[in-house]
């Protein structure tokens, strides 16, 4: 029977220098869909939850979804799943570009990397020809330099995924880059790759098509999905025209735009850093991932060079959160994140934490290598990004371990605006109650894309919710988290969910793989995925109190602006959330596990 799964995985052991092809069990794949879900299941079953994240015992899974490479809108995404050195819990970082599709066309649903090489290597995949090759000459080089060298060697159609100097030095904020400016950004997945001395994976393929289970049906549901995406105001107009940074002015105008390391939540100069300004001053053209009809990516002019531009998150993190209004400096700092392989949320939010340490006297001028960490310093955000990525001074190396370790080093971990040691993104949970539940309960730590409650609470999609209310938010968060787990596991982009809903994703998966999901069924798979992640975390040592928010969010009211006086009401919403999840003290009950076929 034809299916969009390849039903084939690569297992590469770097210690033994062995490469094996394994059969992927189809029933298991369908139970967890693929990507984030299946990757977590594989690691959980192989006992990875208990290992040291930077030891050879950790495993790194690069995994597609069943829709990756298919002729479906945004069907080109892959996930990197591993145990995070940043959080000590599950890491699953999603990326676009074309690398995931290239792996699928080459014939594999996943690559599982184990062990540790004794010298730098890279993995070359070209259909059935898979080999480990020396990478000593690539070690120390920046992302686009590595990509250029490997494309020269393996052909311009080859896709390159790699780590920069940050990953080589095992920094907890290291990410994995592909296609120059696409990133599996969060949770330190680049450090795990560096710990294995794996510099890059090059992927090339002869095949360019994936045959689905039901070609006619897939064409029908794709046509309908495309129509919805094109006719939707967000995916058809807003994102293509302004990119994600159009959010700058919206979130600032509701007074929930964290400013100067969340000490305030309204930035008077926000418009100077907005998507509108980015378009007016720097935009060259839109950027597209594989089979994307949206094109939210920004290709910009940076001092005469055409490069990938910043998303909303780094614009906020380098901008308002560091008190910086200079968009050109933000563009440059973001460029260095990509070149050096740093998480473009974690790195700038850690700079913001360092600025608060400097403001309050914990960091002195003599610590700052001639570039004081003062609020609003355009020079500081660029230079300290480089110090973090290259690890060329003591403070830069400490900062590259993330804001929690940095602030803890100075005895004030409460200055780290993180959950489970991962920095929270660009929405103040004091002024948007539902996103606080998402942050607190995210299995990978502080994160907005594990249940994007901004959609109903700020954008009014699919229906408007009062952002300051708590009623019903637990249930909404659970549904968003479960649906997101489905999308992340399918190989599609989360941004399609502005236009599509559970029935659309179920229809696409059914046509591609031969499953028979209805809405309830597909959401149950999402719930299963959320719960297997939680089981992984439990085995990794997570405790109930880890589902929380920084004290500043719980206890310090927003001091000014449209959300003045607000704090997070997590004390009300978290028990409600556990109840709708069927969890007690942060973990699933036996009845819940049985219901989800996890026992």
């Amino acid at each position: 029977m034809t299916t969009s799964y390849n039903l084939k995985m690569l297992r590469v052991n770097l210690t033994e220098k062995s490469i094996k092809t394994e059969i992927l069990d189809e029933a298991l794949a369908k139970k967890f869909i693929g990507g984030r879900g299946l990757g977590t299941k594989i690691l959980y079953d192989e006992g990875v939850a208990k290992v040291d994240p930077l030891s050879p015992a950790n495993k790194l899974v690069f995994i597609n979804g069943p829709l990756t490479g298919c002729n479906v809108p945004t069907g080109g995404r892959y996930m990197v799943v591993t145990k995070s050195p940043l959080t000590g819990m599950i890491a699953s970082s999603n990326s676009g570009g074309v690398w995931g599709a290239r792996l699928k066309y080459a014939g594999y649903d996943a690559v599982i990397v184990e062990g540790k090489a004794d010298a730098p290597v890279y993995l070359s995949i070209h259909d059935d020809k898979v080999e480990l090759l020396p990478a000593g000459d690539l070690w120390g080089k920046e992302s686009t330099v590595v990509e250029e060298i490997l494309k020269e060697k393996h052909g311009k159609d080859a896709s390159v995924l790699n780590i920069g100097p940050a990953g080589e030095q095992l920094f907890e904020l290291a990410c994995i880059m592909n296609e120059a400016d696409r990133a599996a950004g969060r949770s330190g997945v680049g450090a795990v790759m560096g710990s294995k001395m794996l510099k890059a994976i090059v992927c090339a393929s002869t095949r360019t098509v994936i045959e689905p289970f039901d070609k006619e049906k897939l064409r029908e549901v794709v046509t309908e999905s495309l129509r919805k995406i094109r006719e939707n105001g967000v995916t058809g107009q807003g994102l293509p025209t302004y990119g994600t940074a159009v959010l700058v002015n919206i979130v600032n105008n509701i007074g929930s735009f964290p400013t100067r390391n969340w000490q305030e939540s309204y930035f008077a100069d926000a418009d100077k850093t907005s998507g509108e300004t980015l378009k007016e001053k720097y935009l060259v053209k839109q950027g597209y991932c594989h089979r994307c009809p949206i094109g939210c990516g920004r290709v910009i002019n940076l001092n005469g060079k055409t490069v990938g531009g910043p998303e909303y998150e780094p614009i906020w993190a380098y901008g308002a959160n560091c008190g910086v209004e200079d968009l050109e400096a933000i563009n440059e700092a973001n460029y260095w994140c990509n070149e050096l392989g740093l998480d473009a949320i974690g790195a700038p939010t850690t700079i913001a934490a360092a600025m608060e340490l400097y403001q309050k006297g914990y960091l002195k001028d003599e610590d700052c290598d001639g570039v004081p960490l003062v609020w609003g310093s355009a020079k500081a955000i660029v230079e300290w990004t480089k110090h973090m990525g290259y690890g060329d001074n003591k403070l830069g190396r400490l900062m590259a371990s993330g804001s929690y370790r940095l602030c803890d080093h100075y005895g004030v971990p409460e200055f780290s605006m993180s959950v489970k040691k991962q920095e929270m993104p660009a929405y103040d949970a004091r002024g948007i109650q539902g996103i606080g539940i998402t942050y607190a309960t995210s299995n990978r730590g502080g994160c907005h894309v594990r249940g994007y409650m901004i959609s109903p609470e700020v954008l009014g999609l699919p229906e408007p919710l009062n952002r300051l209310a708590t009623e019903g938010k637990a249930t909404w968060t659970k549904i968003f988290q479960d649906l997101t787990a489905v999308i992340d596991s399918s190989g599609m982009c989360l941004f399609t969910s502005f236009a599509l809903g559970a029935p659309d994703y179920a229809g696409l998966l059914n046509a591609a793989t031969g499953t028979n999901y209805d809405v309830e069924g597909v959401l149950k798979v999402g719930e299963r995925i959320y719960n297997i992640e939680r089981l992984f975390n439990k085995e990794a040592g997570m405790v109930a109190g880890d589902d929380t928010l920084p004290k500043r969010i719980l206890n310090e009211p927003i001091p000014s602006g449209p959300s003045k006086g607000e704090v997070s009401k997590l004390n009300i919403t978290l028990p409600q959330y556990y109840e709708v999840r069927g969890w007690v003290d942060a973990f699933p009950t036996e009845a819940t596990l049985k219901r989800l076929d996890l026992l």
Partner: protein
Amino acid sequence: MIEIRLFATLRENRGKILFFEPENFRDADSILHELNIPASDVAILLINGMHSQPRDSVKDGDVIALFPPVGGG
């Protein structure tokens, strides 16, 4: 005065920030009418940072922010 902040495509041919005398406007809809913006083009209407409807009343000192359909993450 009532401060009107326009964003994204709503800025085209209108500008970024406008100020209106309050006595001429009783609700947000009357301001949209003055600006020649169909209500259907406005996805997010904020009055003093709170999500609001065109029928909601406005008064001296209010800040009104208008956005077309936009999103991100």
